[in-house]
């Protein structure tokens, strides 16, 4: 999977960011610069609500700052640690909504708002609508793995470690999810290339 691997290799240059236990303002800036886009995209792919994504993204970095001293390079890479936090924040968000993610998304799909918010319009104008509609049809697990792979840029082995499943299982879910996305995109009239 060349594209994702290339993406990940660009991301994976920042281990040197974490070189001490105290988070200085410079270090915070570095971490924010290096990870902000990936975290934001990871959240967007999971919830498709940019206002809420902003809020959750902020929560992720708050927790990273607060927990920075507890990060141990021996246990995991910094980005795996950071995306474990991001995953937990998104999970808490779903819990607090007290709804099963894919059910609420399906419900939204059925009644696509005739008056989309400004943020949603931006997504639509950028031509991403078909992709987000297709993502909504995935189960929470599939969507999480797709987000970790293509938005967070994590390797299959890292995703497996985060979710407590095997790398082979991650591969299977990825394949199944991409197949579903492909089908949904085609049905939605998306033209590849």
């Amino acid at each position, binding site marked *: 999977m060349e594209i994702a691997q290339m993406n990940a290799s660009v991301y994976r240059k920042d281990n040197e960011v974490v070189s001490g236990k105290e988070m*200085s*303002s410079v270090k915070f800036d570095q971490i924010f610069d290096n990870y*902000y886009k990936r975290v*934001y995209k990871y959240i967007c792919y999971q919830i498709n609500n940019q206002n809420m994504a902003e809020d959750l993204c902020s929560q992720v970095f*708050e927790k990273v700052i607060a927990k920075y001293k507890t990060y141990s390079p021996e246990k995991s890479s910094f980005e795996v640690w950071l995306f474990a936090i991001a995953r937990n924040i998104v999970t*808490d968000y779903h819990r607090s909504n007290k709804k099963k993610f894919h059910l609420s998304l399906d419900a939204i799909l059925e009644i696509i708002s005739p008056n989309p918010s400004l*943020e949603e319009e*931006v997504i639509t104008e*950028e031509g991403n609508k078909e992709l987000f509609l297709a993502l909504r049809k995935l189960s929470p697990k599939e969507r999480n793995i797709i987000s970790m792979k293509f938005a967070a840029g994590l390797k299959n082995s890292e995703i497996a470690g985060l979710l407590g499943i095997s790398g082979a299982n991650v*591969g299977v879910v990825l394949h199944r999810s991409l197949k579903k996305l492909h089908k949904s995109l085609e049905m939605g009239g998306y033209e590849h290339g």
Partner: protein
Amino acid sequence: MAEEQNIDEFKEVCALLVNTDVNAEMHRERIYNRLEFQIETGVIQQNNEKMEGIYMKRSFNKSIAVAVLTGVCLVGGFSTTALGQGIIQSVVGYFQVGNMTITQYDKELPKIESSAKGDKNAVRGNTEQITTIKEARTNMKIDFVVPTWLPEGYKYMKSVMHGDNAVELVYSKDENLVSLLLSKGENGISTTGVVKTETIAGKSVYFANGIVLWEQDGLTYELYQMSEKNSDLETLGKIIGTMSTEADLNNELYPKN
């Protein structure tokens, strides 16, 4: 390798996922400013000393931010700035649930611009997974009550300690989860939504941010749900009304104890 080749079948979809622009830049400055403000006012640091990893951390930040800024305004001879007034006026109600304060706002805190740079020290907050209710009680140093009834099929899965003052009990049924967070010591949450109160099983029960909260034996209980169907009042009444220190009353619910 076979899997990698299979994924290659969908390289156009992969490319779309990788290259899709979600307008992250549009939100970047606002998020950065919010974080910078919280670091400079010590909000994140103070929050973790009190909360020790409990959920709703961010909301608690707001309470402290209000307190800090209110204090600044008063010390300054009521020379409250427009920003300060905006923050103070945004608080529309407080609800006390045991050791927890629910602060209700009518809007989000406004963004603040600041050029000052401060230390950004982090504060430790540990979580630790444990197996049995007995261990959780030992760690909390309290023989706290737990549900002896949950809707059919739910089983106790594990507990997660959040520092020394909070423990989360996790129950599952297939993909459905129920989390019960017990905490002692002061903490708080905030919401811009409605805070509802009901008397259930003789207790004042609060509903805020989709969380069900009540006080019992000096502890605050927070019930989180991730399931297809929300619990109705009758179900909640049964859960709250059958709380007991005798977890082994129900072997199906607590197979590990």
